[in-house]
């Protein structure tokens, strides 16, 4: 193994750019997660009614309705056509995520993300085996199953078990035993399946993934010629199958990460010491040529 591959994830990036710069998207993401939670919390805690409701449906400043489109879709499939407020709220959310990438919800807003990230951190610390790894498209099957069950039972089926809204509601409205469900997801990710929940099973993520298929905001591996094969991006990425087509693309292949599974979390940008990755838009296809590609590259390819 090359010394750069063997080194802890992000070591070179921290050395090259400093700890803060090598964690900026992680920090921004945590801030964003706290921010979206705080928006809902200042109402009940301080009495400033900025955003009322939960992630399933909310009202901002008393006027702007927002609805989780997946919840709305289940309701429609279950046989209830929602009123204009919920419908327009769902359309607004649909439009925004279709633009910035559906799974931005997963990495920047969803309150379960810190839970599964923590589970993965611990998983790494303990050096555990990856465990049960169902196929990535299992979540699509589950998404279909949820819609079928919604139609059959005439209920918004996923909301009966959805750990995302359950956790959000627990924080904003009072817990009950919702924490047990969140703990279950944590234990599942830690002991049963590495990156199992968000990466393989969650139908909400699957829905938002489909939603963001043609989204504008993308990560590009424009400077892929500079890659020194340290593998840190693969190690840090929660959906690491999305990287290879862009990073290892032959000449002429797009450097954009176009997979709908990419959550735009930006960790690959953080941990790359040679700045291969950057945020851009989906029409930005340019690839930067690096004058002297690192010699190690050829060796890795041959292996």
């Amino acid at each position, binding site marked *: 193994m090359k010394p750069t591959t063997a080194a802890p994830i992000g070591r070179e990036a921290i050395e090259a750019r400093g700890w803060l710069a090598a964690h900026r998207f992680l920090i921004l993401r945590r801030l964003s997660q706290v921010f979206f939670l705080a928006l809902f919390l200042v*109402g009940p805690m301080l009495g400033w*009614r900025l955003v*009322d*409701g*939960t992630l*399933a*449906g*909310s*009202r901002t400043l008393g006027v702007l*309705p927002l*609805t*989780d489109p997946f*919840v*709305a879709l289940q*309701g429609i499939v*279950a*046989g*209830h056509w*929602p*009123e204009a*407020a*919920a419908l327009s*709220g769902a359309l607004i959310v649909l439009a925004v995520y279709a633009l910035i990438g559906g799974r931005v919800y997963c990495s920047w807003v969803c309150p379960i993300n810190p839970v599964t990230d923590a589970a993965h951190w611990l998983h790494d610390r303990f050096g555990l085996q990856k465990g049960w790894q*169902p*196929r990535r498209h*299992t979540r699509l*099957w*589950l998404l*279909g*199953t*949820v819609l*079928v*069950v*919604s139609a*059959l*039972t*005439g*209920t*918004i*089926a*996923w*909301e*009966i*078990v959805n750990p995302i*809204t*359950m956790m959000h*509601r*627990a924080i*904003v*409205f*009072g*817990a*009950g*035993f*919702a924490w*047990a*469900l969140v703990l279950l997801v944590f234990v599942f990710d830690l002991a049963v399946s590495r990156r199992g929940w968000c990466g393989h099973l969650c139908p909400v993520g699957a829905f938002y993934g489909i939603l963001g298929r043609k989204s504008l905001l993308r990560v590009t591996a424009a400077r892929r010629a500079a890659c020194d094969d340290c593998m840190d991006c693969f190690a840090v990425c929660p959906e690491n199958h999305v990287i290879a087509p862009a990073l290892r693309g032959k000449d002429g292949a797009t450097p954009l990460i176009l997979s709908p599974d990419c959550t735009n979390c930006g960790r690959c940008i953080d941990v790359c010491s040679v700045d291969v990755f950057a945020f851009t838009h989906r029409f930005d296809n340019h690839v930067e040529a690096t004058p002297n590609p690192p010699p190690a590259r050829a060796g890795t390819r041959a292996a």
Partner: protein
Amino acid sequence: MSLATSPLSPQRRRFLTDGARMAGGCLMAGSGLTWLAQDARALPANALRPPGALGEDVFLAACIRCGLCVRDCPYDTLSLARLGADGPATGTPFFTARDVPCEMCDDIPCVAACPTGALDQGLASINEARMGTAVLVDQENCLNFLGLRCDVCYRVCPVIDEAITLELSHNNRSGHHAIFAPTVHADRCTGCGKCEQACVLPEAAIKVLPVRLARGASAEHYRKGWEEMQENGGPLVDGIIDLPDRLPGPGTDNLAAPGGFEPTFKLPGAGQ
């Protein structure tokens, strides 16, 4: 060529096993979810839905569990059911009459807040709400039924003298007092729960129950003869024979002739 002689290609075999596995897994997950969804319909009898709530069979398709009705309830009557701690489907709004009843706001802010119509926007007046129906469940402990003048449920009723009236009758125990029986009229009762909350007994003798538990239903083809007669100016069917009615009093043969006339002939010593 038959299947036995041509081995399936590995890709096809893998595709089929993968598909079967996935379908099997989804069938299990889906069955579990269906079971939970059916289970979630079991609304406990003391949990009341907010005014204008659609029937429980469609409510779980309409309510997205956003909690806006709870936020906009000025009296903190409503709360969202917590997983494992409250009876109704997790995250759905409800209230418990004995704890905090509905104050029946004129502008019905909870209904106005609902973005999906799970609380029906068509509810024009709070007096039309049917969150449940009050039932005087325990006449044996109700103070008014014991002949006392408690009257609290009657006094607190926002639709006093219409949804609850006091019906007078003779007190057979004391022999010379009246019983003022609190009597609920379901066609006017909104199910707000103020009576249940106010009942002075340690366990309320009057309770608001979901309409499905509180009320019977008449068959659609039933007609009340006396109402039809009044509307029609006579019986709907001609030639109905009115049989003699037995009158109260001692004896076995004190009959009234059709139309309530006294019989012209009386047996000696019969009747009074």
